[in-house]
């Protein structure tokens, strides 16, 4: 009987120490979401300015630039998947990877070869475990991404895109990441980055002015487009990091709540066991006394 109480006591102790950890991780995630979101906001003016410039150039110019022209028969596509380094974030990484799988399947059905590029240790583990090939992986700091990393990824992918298809270059570039819609809703999405698809400017927008280019349109586009891709990737990384933290916060909150429930359950069982032990001891004593009195 005493053994049972001890088991429950141990369970309560370990559950409460786990609860403390969950609680701490929840608080850390909560405090970091704000920072991640303000970083995403801070990067917004750059992304907007660059998008405006790129669409202005592309909409009024008939120059054929390699980054904007569609290959007639695309045969190879690069897919960049943004996941997290660490788990303990519920289904965050799983959802992105699922989205990536769906996109891969779709591209394969269209007869394209898919070259995966991974970001985050979770994606790497996913691919390694299934013994699948991937072209490159970047890990570290997925919850606080740096511009340099985005530039590195952007450069790698643009270089790959600029290679001729026969030499192993890709014709298309897709980005799979988690969009931060609100604190309670994050949606994995797949977007095509290259070739660029421009939305014709809306009627309500004033028409884009005719720009002069210095030194010339070709060179301006050469410099502009890789930056555009980098800024898109960086924006996606920042959003993914905010999503990761929000997912972690939620996962840790429900883990702490579950721990609470367990502690309550075990406490009840422990008290039951203790009461049963006392009752048994009492009835043994009484039975013993009765037996002595009778003799």
């Amino acid at each position, binding site marked *: 009987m005493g053994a049972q109480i001890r088991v429950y006591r141990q369970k309560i102790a370990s559950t409460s120490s786990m609860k403390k950890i969950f609680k701490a991780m929840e608080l850390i995630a909560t405090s970091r979401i704000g920072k991640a979101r303000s*970083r995403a906001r*801070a*990067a917004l*003016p*750059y992304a907007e*300015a*660059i998008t*405006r*410039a790129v669409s*202005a*150039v592309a909409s009024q110019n008939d120059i054929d630039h390699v980054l904007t022209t569609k290959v007639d028969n695309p045969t190879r596509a690069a897919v960049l998947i943004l996941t997290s380094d660490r788990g303990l974030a519920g289904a965050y990484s799983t959802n992105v990877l699922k989205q990536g799988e769906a996109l891969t399947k779709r591209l394969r059905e269209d007869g394209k070869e898919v070259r995966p590029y991974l970001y985050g240790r979770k994606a790497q583990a996913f691919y390694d475990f299934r013994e699948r090939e991937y072209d490159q992986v970047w890990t570290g700091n997925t919850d606080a991404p740096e*511009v340099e990393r985005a*530039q590195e990824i952007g450069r790698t992918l643009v270089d790959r895109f600029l290679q001729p298809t026969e030499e192993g270059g890709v014709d298309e570039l897709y980005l799979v990441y988690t969009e931060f819609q609100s604190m309670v809703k994050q949606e994995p999405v797949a977007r095509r980055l290259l070739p660029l698809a421009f939305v014709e400017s809306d009627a309500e927008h004033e028409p*884009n*002015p*005719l*720009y*002069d*280019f*210095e*030194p010339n349109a070709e*060179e*301006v586009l050469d*410099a*502009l487009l890789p*930056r555009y891709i*980098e*800024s898109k990737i*960086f924006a996606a990384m920042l959003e993914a990091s905010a999503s990761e933290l929000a997912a972690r916060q939620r996962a840790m909150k429900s883990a702490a709540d579950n721990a609470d429930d367990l502690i309550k359950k075990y406490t009840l069982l422990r008290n039951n066991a203790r009461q049963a032990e006392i009752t048994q001891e009492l009835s043994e004593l009484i039975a013993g006394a009765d037996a002595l009195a009778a003799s």
Partner: protein
Amino acid sequence: MAELDVQVVASDHAVWSGAAKSVRGRTVEGDMGILPGHTPVLSLLAEGELLIDPVEGAPVKAKVNGGFFSVDSDRVTIVADDAELIED
């Protein structure tokens, strides 16, 4: 007199924004000065200094490292890879 609406942004933060009388920057082809009413232009920036003369207050100087700048109907956007203000 017309004013320029100037915005200076680096890849991860906004550096400076406000109204200005003139902006001078270094492009790959040499220095370029912008006054209100300038024709729309999109130009590559070279490494160098950016000088903004705001409507109010002292001139603002910034160190810019690559990027581009666009002018369109008195709106000047300087998009730099890396930029920081210089205090003097």
